């Protein structure tokens, strides 16, 4: 079918279907709307009729009710009633009658009544105007007792009601000449009361003519409209008013209830209300509205013939049909014209293209119009032009390309992937020193044969990747065997240009370039870089060893200056020595920093892997810096509430270094206010967590422009800062590097003048070790070996161990130690690291090599901390490792741990002990524990007491040493268990007091009482001084609850033998 025919059909189809659809919908809708509208009209019409009728009823009822209260009616009833008894012909009655007749007739006429009645309470009709046969009869007993008037009388007289009666035929009236039998009457009666006494009843008679007009007013209904008033008459609905098309219908037409016509009439008399399409009394289809009037037992119907209603709809339908036909005609003609206009240029185009297809390539289509078809013609023509031009270009570029291909420096290949057929150009062959002829027969195998076998291995995966579309180009570097026998480097760049119908690779083309020369360059570059790296490494190494080398003589300088300072010097000399010492110390700090920095820079820092609890590490730092903080009157707050990982594995020393660095700065640059350290942790994987540290101070702050370079080496906030506060400017740089080494970073924010906030984080392994439980241990009868070249160290340690009941042997050197070990079995050996000839590590290694000492526990003591020794010590097989000085409680704990059978395979360090739990932690204190607190400062006294109370201990407090002696002496019968002794006190200080106690001046029993010093930790020598005076242990102020508790546990524990008296 041609476009033209299709167009015509489509036009007609669309137009006709639209029109017919519209027609159907509109006619349906119009029908519905029309009938709805008419129905509404009928409803409101019938309601209007009802309104009129009810107005009539109410009017009559009100009128009669009103009559009853009129004096004239009252007096008429009275007087006529009296005279009536004498007979209606009696002159008395006649007289009264003639007096009242015009009055009452007037009242009757006013309401258009047919007659008016006065009835006495006994039912006698004592007055009427018309004097029909009912006059002077008795309504209860007389001939008319079965009338509506009788009913009206009874209603009024006994129920005192005024209600209209239904219309019906009334014999006295029918009998009256001039009336017809079709006349119907209704009555309205009202009681006439005199006070509470019934005087009689007044009633009016209404005639059916009154309502006939109701059914004869056709305003508002169409020409077929009718109003049907009927009433139920036996089993019939009787029409009681004239009909439009039959004036004599009243009382003549009746329809049996249940018959299949006059339905609305039947419904109306049986009490229904409604409207709709139904069958009329003429058995035609009608639209009607019907109502029931219960007061009169009437039904009323307003109806209209359906034919008339729908006539307009029918007309509409006809108009539509005609319109549709005309429209179809117009559309048809239009379709023919339009389709011709459409198709003519298309036909021309068709002819033109056919011509071109037959080879007339220079033919151009004639342009016929400027519309879309004209544009199409133009486009077609220009397409032809463009095609001609591009064909020419293609031809040109083809010839160019072949020139290029032949003259290019690159080899070209074209490979049929499926058959292996391959085409190379001459250059391809010449790259490897051949001519194409020499390589015949050429296939992909030609290439494979010349390719280096090692390189071929990689080729396949590269090719597959390209085929899968993962790489845009296939790029491959390979060595090819030159005709002359050497290898040359070539670069192949290719592309898959065709796939077969199944999507499999079909054809690839590419180039083949000699890159031997650039390959050689590349090699040179790599070597140069390696050289440079070695240089940088050498520099770092140099710096590190330099610093180390400088440090050694610096130690000499410092030592000598120290010695010099102790000699007797003049004031000037002393000042000079002090300045020299200060400078030397600064230099040493700088050197240490440089050493650290160069180590970091050279990647030489090795991180420890120690199990520890960050809380204890921080607590120690805070404790150690407490003095400085106190001196400056600052607040220092440590918040570890959000630290969820209590046991981790990492390098506590390095973390300590960073924190101390930042914290020292904070203390240094803060003159008032507070320093807040916040630590939190969150898991990042199952095995790792991130520790977040934040140190906020309220110090002088850092200017914005300095923030960026703050972590660069040799940078400080200000040159003047260096002058004022000192420092090398390396600390933060080292901290930054350490953070990065531990997988984190460090940042700073600061408001100049308001304070600074340093935040850093590190990544640590979550330790799967549960905090180990430190059990009680019996140290008596244990065999100890102490190996140290320093005599004092040996003596102090021996004293402590023997104090707990252990047996101690000493060795001055490693070789002596080995000799002693050969002779005797020991439980534990304490080895000093720094010893001449053979150091502690080497000694440990030797001991561990010997099977028979495998049970010996080895504890390393060193004065150099944080030097990455843990790893070495662990490898050797040491059980514990402590930097000096070691507190006695740490030693006890360490011994308890290493001697325990279920001890984890971990090197015990101070950090590890801090992370452990004491099994006697939560237990009860021994019974009768009494503590004497010796402290002069009342505030400190309060603090100590409340801490003791918190852990369940009560203490008596005294203010100085002499009071303490007294208190101990008095308490002989209820002895004290332990003394907490402040060192600096007036009257008698702690050292003196201890010496006195040990000398028995406070009573024999407390010669061995445990005395624990509370030191301000100000000087390094304090602790030694405490132990030397006879105290058993020491804790630092401010008092840490945990440390205090641990220490007390150790010393209140009965299983530890009290130390011997010095």
């Amino acid at each position, binding site marked *: 079918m041609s476009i033209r025919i299709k167009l015509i059909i*489509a036009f007609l189809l*669309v*137009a006709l*279907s*639209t029109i017919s*659809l519209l027609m159907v*919908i509109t006619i349906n809708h119009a029908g519905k709307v029309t009938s709805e509208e008419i129905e509404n009209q009928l409803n409101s019409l019938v*309601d209007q009729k*009802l309104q009129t009728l*009810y107005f009539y*009823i*109410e009017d009559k*009822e*009100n009128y009669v*009710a009103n009559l*009853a*209260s009129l004096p004239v009616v009252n007096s008429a009833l009275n007087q006529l009633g009296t005279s009536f008894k004498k007979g209606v012909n009696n002159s008395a009655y006649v007289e009264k009658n003639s007096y009242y007749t015009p009055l009452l007739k007037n009242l009757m006429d006013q309401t258009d009544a047919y007659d008016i009645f006065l009835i006495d309470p006994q039912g006698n009709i004592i007055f009427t105007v018309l004097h029909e046969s009912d006059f002077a009869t008795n309504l209860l007993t007389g001939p008319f007792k079965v009338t509506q008037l009788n009913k009206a009388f009874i209603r009024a007289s*006994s*129920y*005192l*009601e*005024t*209600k209209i009666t239904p219309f019906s035929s009334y014999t006295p009236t029918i009998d009256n000449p001039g009336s017809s039998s079709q006349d119907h009457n209704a009555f309205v009666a*009202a*009681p006439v*009361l005199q006070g*509470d*006494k*019934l005087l009689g009843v007044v009633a009016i008679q209404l005639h059916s003519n009154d309502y006939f007009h109701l059914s004869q007013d056709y305003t508002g209904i169409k020409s077929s409209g009718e109003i049907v008033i009927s009433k139920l008459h036996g089993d019939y609905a009787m029409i009681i008013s004239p009909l439009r098309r039959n004036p004599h219908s009243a009382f003549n037409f009746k329809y049996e209830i249940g018959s299949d016509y006059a339905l609305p009439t039947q419904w109306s008399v049986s*009490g*229904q*209300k409604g409207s709709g399409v139904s069958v009329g009394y003429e058995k035609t289809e009608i639209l009607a509205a019907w*109502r*029931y*009037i*219960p*007061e009169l037992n009437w039904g009323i119907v307003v109806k209209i013939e359906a034919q008339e209603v729908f006539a307009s709809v029918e007309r509409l339908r006809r108009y539509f049909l005609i319109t549709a036909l005309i429209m179809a005609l117009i559309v048809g003609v239009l379709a023919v014209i339009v389709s011709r206009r459409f198709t003519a240029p298309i036909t021309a185009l068709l002819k033109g293209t056919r011509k071109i297809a037959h080879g007339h390539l220079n033919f151009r289509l004639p342009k016929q119009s400027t519309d879309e078809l004209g544009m199409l013609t133009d486009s077609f023509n220009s397409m032809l032009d463009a095609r001609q031009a591009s064909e020419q270009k293609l031809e040109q570029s083809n010839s160019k390309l072949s020139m290029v291909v032949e003259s290019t420096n690159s080899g070209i290949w074209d490979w049929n992937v499926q058959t292996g057929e391959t085409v190379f150009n001459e250059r391809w062959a010449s790259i490897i020193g051949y001519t194409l002829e020499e390589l015949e027969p050429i296939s992909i195998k030609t290439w494979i044969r010349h390719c280096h076998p090692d390189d071929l291995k990689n080729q396949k995966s590269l090719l597959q990747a390209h085929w899968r579309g993962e790489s845009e180009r296939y790029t491959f570097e390979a060595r090819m065997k030159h005709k002359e026998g050497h290898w040359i480097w070539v670069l192949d760049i290719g592309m898959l240009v065709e796939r077969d119908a199944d999507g499999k690779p079909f054809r690839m083309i590419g180039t083949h370039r000699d890159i031997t020369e650039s390959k050689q360059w590349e090699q040179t570059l790599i070597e140069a870089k390696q050289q440079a790296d070695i240089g940088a490494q050498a520099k770092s190494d140099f710096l590190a060893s330099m610093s180390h080398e400088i440090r050694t003589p610096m130690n000499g300088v410092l030592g000598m200056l120290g010695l010099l300072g102790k000699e007797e010097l003049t004031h000037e000399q002393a000042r000079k020595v002090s300045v020299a010492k200060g400078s030397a110390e600064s230099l040493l700090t700088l050197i240490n920093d440089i050493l650290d920095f160069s180590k970091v820079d050279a990647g030489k820092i090795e991180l420890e892997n120690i199990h520890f609890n960050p809380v204890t590490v921080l607590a120690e730092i805070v404790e150690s810096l407490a003095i400085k903080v106190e001196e400056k009157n600052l607040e220092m707050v440590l918040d570890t509430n959000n630290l969820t990982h209590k046991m981790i594995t990492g390098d506590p020393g390095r973390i300590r270094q960073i924190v101390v660095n930042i914290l020292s700065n904070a203390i240094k640059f803060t003159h008032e206010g507070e320093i807040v350290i916040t630590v939190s942790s969150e898991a990042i994987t199952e095995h790792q967590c991130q520790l977040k540290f934040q140190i906020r101070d309220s110090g002088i702050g850092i200017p914005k422009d300095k923030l960026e370079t703050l972590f660069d080496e040799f940078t400080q906030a200000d040159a003047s800062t260096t002058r004022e506060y000192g420092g090398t400017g390396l600390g933060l740089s080292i901290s930054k590097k350490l953070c990065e080494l531990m997988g984190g970073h460090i940042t700073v924010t600061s408001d100049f003048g308001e304070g600074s906030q340093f935040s850093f984080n590190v990544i640590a392994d979550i330790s799967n070790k549960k905090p180990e439980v430190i059990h009680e241990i019996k140290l008596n009868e244990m065999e100890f070996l102490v190996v140290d070249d320093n005599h004092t160290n040996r003596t102090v340690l021996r004293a402590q161990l023997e104090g707990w009941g252990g047996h101690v042997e000493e060795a001055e050197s490693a070789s002596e130690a080995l000799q002693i070990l050969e002779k005797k079995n020991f439980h534990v050996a304490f080895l000093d690291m720094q010893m001449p000839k053979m150091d502690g590590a080497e000694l440990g290694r030797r001991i561990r090599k010997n099977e028979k000492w495998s049970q010996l526990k080895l504890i390393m003591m060193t004065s150099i901390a944080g030097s990455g020794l843990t790893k070495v010590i662990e490898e050797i097989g040491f059980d514990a490792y402590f930097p000096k000085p070691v507190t006695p409680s740490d030693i006890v704990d360490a011994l308890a741990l290493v001697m325990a059978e279920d001890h984890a395979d971990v090197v015990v360090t101070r950090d590890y002990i801090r992370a452990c739990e004491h099994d006697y932690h939560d237990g009860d204190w021994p019974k009768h524990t009494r503590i004497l607190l010796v402290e002069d400062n009342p505030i400190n006294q309060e603090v100590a007491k409340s801490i003791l109370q918190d852990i369940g201990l009560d203490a008596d407090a005294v203010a100085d040493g002499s009071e303490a002696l007294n208190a101990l002496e008095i308490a002989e019968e209820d002895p004290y268990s332990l003394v907490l002794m402040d060192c600096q006190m007036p009257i008698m200080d702690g050292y003196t007091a201890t010496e006195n106690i040990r000398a028995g001046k406070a009573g024999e029993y407390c010669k061995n009482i445990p005395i624990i010093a509370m030191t301000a930790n100000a000087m390094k020598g304090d602790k030694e001084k405490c132990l030397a005076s006879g105290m058993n242990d020491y804790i630092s102020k401010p008092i840490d609850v945990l440390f205090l508790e641990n220490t007390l546990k150790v010393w209140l524990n009965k299983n530890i033998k009290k130390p011997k008296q010095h």
Partner: protein
Amino acid sequence: MPFKGLLPVFLLTLLTGCEHDQGTLKVGVLHAQTGTMALHEVGVTAATLFAIEELNEAGGVLGKELVPVVMDTESKDELAVEGALTLILDEGVEALFGCWTSSCRREVKPVLELFNHLLFYPVQYEGLEDSRNIVYLGSLPNQQMIPALHWSMDQFGKRIALVGSDYVYPLMANDILKQHITVANGEVLLEQYFPLGHQDFKAIVNDLKNSNVDVVFNTLNGDSSKWFFNELAKQNLPTPIMSFSVSDESLSQVAFTEQNQIYAAGSYFQSIDTKENKNFVERFRKAKGENIKISAAMISAYGAVKLWAKAVSKIKSTDSSTVSQALKGEVFHGPSGEMRISFINQHTWNPLYIAKQENNQFQIVKSFELYIRPITWPTYSKKVHWSSKLDHLYKKWGERWAPRSDSGEYQ
């Protein structure tokens, strides 16, 4: 071709245009669920809700589901006023179904008239009122008390005692009754009113026992009627009692004696022997409980919902003026027969039965002419006469429709 695209759009518009809208219609139920009136009104509420449920099952009204909002008046008039305000203003109900006592209705009336809202009132009352905003479904004195009076005087004699609750309905209804008694040469020997919720009837029953009263007219409301009956039974009073505000629910659990003669007049008794009634009783008891007693007011309340729904469906509007216009002459065929709204006033044509207590159930002893026309204002006295009497009571009680009571339950 541009037409092709338009055609489906055109069709779609036609189709969707015919779609009916969905949603809900709220109706207010304003009855006491607690307090002295709960005896009557819990049942009325159930009947109202039952009608709503039936309508919803049949697809709702105007295609929308009816949602009842029940407000408990707690047998307190001021709470009824508040409840009416809440239902009209806050809940936005389309119509109200509620009130038992005349005092409740008369208190709520100004609210209804202010907001031109429609209340359907299901209880027999004194008349003397004809608000365009209330559809009265209960019987007026001319539909209940007056015919019952004449029947009683014929049956028992003309010496009459009047016992009622102390509020507007018993007082005004008896006022009308007294006029009729006098005209009929009857005699009122005793007349006494008790506060609503009153429980002690020992003295009055004793007084009755010692009098020569032929018949007692009882207009007690709320649970007082039960206490009264109990006392009658206790003292074995043989005088016939004609009650106007009771139904089977007031009889339950009273141990009547052989001598007790308890009568009631009403537009409905549960024992009416018609197919429609039996069917309804069965349906209603299945939904609301096998032991539930059905009163005339419950039937009126049930019919009220149905009549409202019928009018709304016809005029497709819930506007109260339009609904009230459409209700004129409307009729519902219920369990008690036809319920027809008068064209003259907004009252119903009601049937009348007189029933006698037998085994704690009222059995019909007399059926009157079917469907008595409602007459609101007795015509033998002028309207102004009734108005001034009402006004007098209203002022006497301190501008309310019932005297203040110390119990606080009914004020």
